């Protein structure tokens, strides 16, 4: 059963720790699956810019990191620095992983959504990327109760580069204020 194989791979994300946090030695960091839950919950609840369909956004959120079940959670940028070459290679590997995973499952619509996210061109994909970063700082704020906040500066710097939507900026600023307290 090809479909069952895909399902099991998707569930592997529960056991994959988010690399950004493991690099910072956060004890017991969240899994990629937990992060996906965060992004999908944001997709369900935040105010949307014009032209974005919520149902599509939520579905894309649920599969936006699915390729990581095969290639792991690779980091290609930190703070305001990104390694372009590494990013390109990672994207290519991820695309391959998605094609392999979805092969003969009949789930073409879902496959398309995950590929659309990686291409990072459509308005939905771009907005989802902002939510991805918003979830990251929400999580950073939780960890900062356990570790020195300075240690996680780079996540805030990174998120700042991505979050442009005016409503999301309001959230981001509110979180930043909370952080300073």
């Amino acid at each position: 059963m090809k479909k069952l194989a895909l399902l099991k791979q998707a569930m592997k994300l529960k056991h994959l720790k988010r690399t950004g946090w493991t690099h910072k030695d956060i004890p017991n960091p969240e899994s990629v699956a937990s992060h996906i839950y965060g992004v999908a919950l944001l997709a369900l609840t935040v105010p949307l810019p014009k032209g974005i369909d919520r149902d599509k956004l939520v579905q894309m959120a649920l599969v936006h990191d699915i390729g990581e079940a095969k290639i792991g959670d690779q980091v290609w940028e930190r703070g305001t620095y990104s390694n372009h070459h590494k990013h390109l290679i990672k994207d290519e590997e991820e695309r391959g992983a998605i094609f392999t995973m979805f092969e003969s499952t009949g789930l073409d619509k879902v496959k398309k959504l995950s590929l659309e996210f990686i291409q990072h061109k459509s308005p939905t994909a771009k907005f989802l990327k902002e939510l991805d970063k918003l979830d990251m700082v929400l999580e950073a704020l939780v960890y900062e109760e356990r570790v020195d906040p300075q240690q996680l500066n780079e996540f805030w710097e990174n998120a700042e580069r991505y979050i442009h939507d005016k409503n999301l900026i309001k959230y981001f600023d509110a979180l930043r204020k909370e952080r300073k307290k």
Partner: protein
Amino acid sequence: MVPIQRYVFKEPRLPGIMPDLELIKTALKLKSVKRSGWVYKEISNPESVADHSYGISFLALFAPLPKGVNRDSLIKMALLHDLSESNLGDPIYETGKFRNLKKYHLILNDKKKVLMDMFGKNYPTEKKLALDYLQQKTPEAKFLKELDKLESVLQALTYEKNYPPERLNEFWENAELYIKDKQLLKFFEQLRKERLTSRVNSG
């Protein structure tokens, strides 16, 4: 069976300046709530309720649907189905084929209160979906319950690679009580077969 224990209903939070952000932050607490079923079985480092919510939402996106179930509502309900546990933890009212009815009603009531408090007047559609799941009356709510159980045996199968499978028998027995949809039964049967095969091979 876990002893009966009334779950302490935490103080309702003061409404913040941004109620939507408050709701989001509360929901994301599910990332650090461990699933009690695995904790009681002493599974080391068990999944969080957020992990499980991801699993069931993915299933909602992926599963063939029976007539009358709307996929988008189902997915949204899946994302919200354990929301109250961010406040209550993950209370258990049934084990295997046994359900503690008294406890079930207490928990249900607590969960409703938490949801009413969390949502207030915001997000009426989402609030309704979350409450619908507790009531178990709509087609989406009933089907999601089946997905919830399918998700738990998928996870049990993963843990059984590292523990004696007998330890998790009750999860399979419990799922069997719930899974009725013919498509889901196919997946369930396949997983059960795999479970038996791996036991024969390792035993």
